[in-house]
């Protein structure tokens, strides 16, 4: 492959990344308040990165984008409800939420995994619908079971009708507890005419994200990790090699769900209030957009994709919604631009992936036919030889 071909292949494989980068950079001059961008970006990236990591393992195991990571987010939220109810504060509150959320996340993960095993080939759309379904179950738990079947201690988070959790849960008791644990602040920097506001760097949060990255690298080297890769490449071959395919797939979903649970807790601790029934609705789709913007596909995702993706996606969120109104003259355009770019990147990425998969399949089939043809010709020639001899 010569240089030009290599470059064009690089461009094509990372098409989505380049489009997003170009778009965000184009929007940058129009966006105003550019000085606040580094600080906002740091906050957004540290808030979301953990959640995006949760998508890697299922992609690795061949399950596509796990839209039902939302179930893990819901488990984390249930943990937080208990935490606020029992008034466990600060980092201890987060640990407590994680401990409560873990068994719930495992249970949800087992459920999701078994459902997804029954629809091989359609995992992504099923996981999406499963997410919606479980939102109904979650609402049942949060709006009807808390306070009646599940004990709720504090009257101030209960709805006035006597059961169910309030619409908005105030997270002041745990707000920032992870971020502020050990944080440094850079000074304000002046670049030419632009003043960059001080950037708060939450060291503990970053350390946790780095630890997760190492965990994933280690995991991929374990036997279970290798099994998942085998299942992800070809389920039939993996089965023939003696791997319990169904069990491996379920485990990948359980891990993803538990990571989503912790990720959602990290996400929510950097937000003041939690919309009790809605906080998880954007989770799966934002994480998917992030990982896909970073160049991942439905069958291949790396840590690089996660980090590039979450940074780029949120850079886009910082620049485009501020720039769009100026370009189009209407303030309301911003919101729709965000949605369009987020939905669009997922759609584009899925389309490119499916298109490439189809091409690969066709080429493989063609190669098989040629090989078969050659073998047939060779056999015929050998038979002719043998006949003559």
């Amino acid at each position, binding site marked *: 492959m010569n240089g030009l071909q290599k470059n064009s292949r690089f461009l094509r494989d990372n098409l989505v990344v380049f489009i997003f980068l170009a778009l965000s950079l184009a929007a940058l001059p129009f966006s105003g308040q550019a000085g606040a961008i580094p600080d906002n970006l740091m906050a957004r990236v540290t808030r979301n990165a953990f959640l995006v990591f949760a998508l890697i393992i299922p992609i690795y195991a061949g399950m596509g984008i796990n839209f039902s990571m939302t179930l893990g987010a819901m488990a984390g939220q249930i943990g937080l409800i208990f935490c606020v109810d029992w*008034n*466990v*504060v600060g980092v*201890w509150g987060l*640990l*407590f939420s994680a*401990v409560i959320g873990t068994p719930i996340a495992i249970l949800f993960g087992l459920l999701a995994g078994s459902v997804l095993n029954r629809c091989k080939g359609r995992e992504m759309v099923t996981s999406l619908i499963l997410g919606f379904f479980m939102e109904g179950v979650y609402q049942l738990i949060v709006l009807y079971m808390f*306070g009646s079947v599940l004990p709720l201690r504090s009257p*101030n988070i209960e709805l006035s009708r006597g059961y169910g959790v309030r619409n908005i849960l105030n997270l002041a008791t745990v707000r920032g507890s992870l971020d502020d644990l050990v944080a440094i602040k850079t000074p304000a920097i002046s670049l030419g005419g632009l003043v960059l506001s001080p950037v708060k760097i939450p060291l503990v949060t970053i350390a946790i994200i780095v630890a997760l990255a190492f965990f994933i690298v280690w995991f991929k080297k374990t036997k279970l990790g290798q099994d998942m890769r085998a299942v992800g490449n070809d389920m039939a071959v993996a089965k023939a090699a003696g791997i319990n395919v169904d069990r491996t797939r379920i485990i990948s979903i359980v891990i993803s769900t538990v990571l989503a649970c912790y990720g959602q807790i990290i996400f929510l601790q950097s937000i003041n209030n939690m919309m009790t029934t809605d906080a998880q609705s954007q989770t799966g789709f934002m994480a998917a957009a992030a990982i896909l913007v970073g160049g991942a596909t439905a069958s291949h995702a790396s840590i690089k994709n996660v980090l590039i993706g979450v940074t780029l996606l949120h850079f886009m969120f910082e620049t485009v919604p501020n720039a769009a109104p100026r370009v189009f003259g209407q303030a309301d355009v911003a919101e729709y631009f965000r949605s369009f770019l987020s939905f669009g990147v997922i759609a584009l990425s899925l389309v490119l992936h499916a298109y490439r998969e189809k091409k690969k399949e066709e080429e493989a089939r063609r190669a098989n036919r040629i090989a078969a043809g050659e073998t047939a010709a060779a056999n015929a020639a050998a038979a002719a030889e043998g006949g003559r001899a």
Partner: protein
Amino acid sequence: MSNGNGTSGLSTRLADPVFRRRLAIRAALVALVAGIGAFSMVVGRGHTVVLDDMRPKDGSYEPVRMLSAKLGRGKAVELSSGVRELVTVTGQSPKLVVDWMDGSEPVSVELSIPFKQDFVIVYLPKLKAGIEPWVEPFFPYASAKPAEEAAPAATEAP
């Protein structure tokens, strides 16, 4: 190793050392996680302390004119006679340090708050005068009071 009907029941599996080790590791993990949870819950349990410097209804003691109180690692709070202040603390045994601001020795006591109790009230004048009890549970919401059971959660009329 098999039992009568050829299936692998729990008893057969328990005899397998690999299974036993796995079970032990998993049980230990569960215990560890549960332990972290319980530990967080106890250590991180937040309480709100109502610092009271008011004249009681029955006039049995006088409020303190001015004082400064510090709970746990929080900032010192100033109270004058007739006011109450809310301070949040973490943990069940915060140290209360009060400076009566009248030349006498600052008092340092350790509050012990029952785990389940969200709010307690400290009557600072009582503490100064040595009247027991100067700390008791506090119920900001009438419905949380265990003594007088509020009516069960009423379902609303259509």
